[in-house]
């Protein structure tokens, strides 16, 4: 009787094993499934760090990477002198750059900002740095100088600026220091802060950070000049 009971148990467990043994196909498919699942998660999580890394590489090697023609214009990077020790003057003439040319470096110690500024705004230029609107005035000239950049790359920390913080714009023709005078927020169809003004100012703005898609809101700062140094050759 004991033997019958043992045989019965063995038969039951053999049946269970026969039902539960995974096929070779399943054993091969599972690692692939795990790989696809993990790879998908890695790709999703790597998108922001990859953009940041590209930004940092652009900043580190700006002035050294030459970029070929694109859409009928050339992205031209210049060596901007941020250690100029020659003679300077309060007055002088701004040098008009061409569309796609790097004409300045925007720097702010408070938020570790140090980005190239290109003359003109389009999708490609925004990948390389901050862009100044061609309908705005050059730094050092009367009127409103308007500079924008992507929030997830170059202007990611602009929201941390406060009134009184200092920014410097090093251009090919001079060095211009500004102080933040106003923190601004506006809808993208509101041109209030990007139109010409009577006073000389620097307006920086970017999109409001959102998890999915882009926002209609713009955030930034308005700055007024504290020092102008035109280079004398």
């Amino acid at each position, binding site marked *: 009787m004991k033997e019958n009971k043992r045989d019965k148990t063995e038969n039951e467990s053999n049946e269970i*094993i026969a039902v539960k043994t995974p096929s070779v196909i399943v054993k091969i498919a599972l690692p692939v499934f*795990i790989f696809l699942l993990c790879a998908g998660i890695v790709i999703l999580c790597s998108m922001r760090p990859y953009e940041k890394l590209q930004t940092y590489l652009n*900043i580190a090697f700006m002035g050294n990477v*030459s970029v*070929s023609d694109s859409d009928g214009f050339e992205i031209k990077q210049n060596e901007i002198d941020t250690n100029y020790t020659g003679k300077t003057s309060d007055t002088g003439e701004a040098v008009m750059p061409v569309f796609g040319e790097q004409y300045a470096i925007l720097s702010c110690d408070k938020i570790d900002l140090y980005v190239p500024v290109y003359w003109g705004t389009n999708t490609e230029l925004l990948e390389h740095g901050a862009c100044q609107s061609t309908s705005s005035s050059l730094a050092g000239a009367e009127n409103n100088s308007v500079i924008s950049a992507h929030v997830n790359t170059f202007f990611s920390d602009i929201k941390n600026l406060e009134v009184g913080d200092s920014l410097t714009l090093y251009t090919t023709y001079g060095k211009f220091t500004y102080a933040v005078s106003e923190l601004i927020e506006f809808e993208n169809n509101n041109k209030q802060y990007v139109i010409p003004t009577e006073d000389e100012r620097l307006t920086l703005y970017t999109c409001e950070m959102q998890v999915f898609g882009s926002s209609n809101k713009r955030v930034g700062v308005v700055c007024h000049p504290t020092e102008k140094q035109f280079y004398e050759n």
Partner: protein
Amino acid sequence: MKIIPKILIAVVLNFCILGTIICSLGYSLLHNPDNCVELISSQSLDEKAHKSIEDYFNEQYNTTAVPAKIYTDIITVDWVRKEMENNIKHTYSNLGNKDAEYKPDYTGLEESISAFFSDYAKSINYNPDEAYEKKLNETIEKAESSINSKLDVFKFETMRKAGILNKIDKIIPLLNAGRIISGIASVILIIVLILGKKNVWGRIYWTGCSFFSVGLILMIPGIFLIATDYFSAFTIKDSAIYSAFTGIMNNTTNTILYSGIVCAAIGIIAIVSGFFKKKN
């Protein structure tokens, strides 16, 4: 153990192994200056930078009338190599210090330029005055500034001004903690999977799945970057900077690829072992 928890543990193990490898690689690259120092000789960065300096001063002769040999007799390949190494070691030791700019030893260069100016002034019976001193200082400053930019092939100075080195300094301890924690978690999860109840999958099958997945995640981008010679497509004007940039990127890519190959091999062996499980 049912299959779903096993899959979940395998996925978590996958990220622990990946975290260990990536954090270890990042920590080694950002903490150890030897990676950059080794590139000086393997990519001949010293010779390329010296050539760039020599070409620059040869071009400048037409406007300054100062012969290039006044500079290049002092700024030799050995001098360039020594200053590059010192710059790298100094930078790695002062990542978080925004004001710790490296200043090469220009004593010999300043003496050479001063001697040239002095000899020239004597030859034309010119008495050194304020204008002479101003011109001498300008020439020395401009020479040092130009040489600095050509020596700094890894663009540490630009990175310092942009606050990138400061950010790296903050990341390094996190990478160190990350690799230790991920490593310990990996070991624990492997033990859990191996010592789990005997089952039809084999003891090391699920561990193999994780290693295989990690291997592919590391290998596929590595193969793509190497097969397409991705980094060589960057057109960087200065040849020394180009070599430094591509050298670092290619070395890092190779390390990631080899890690991926090892993990994939371990994974395949462990998975295959599951096909040969002996029945009791």
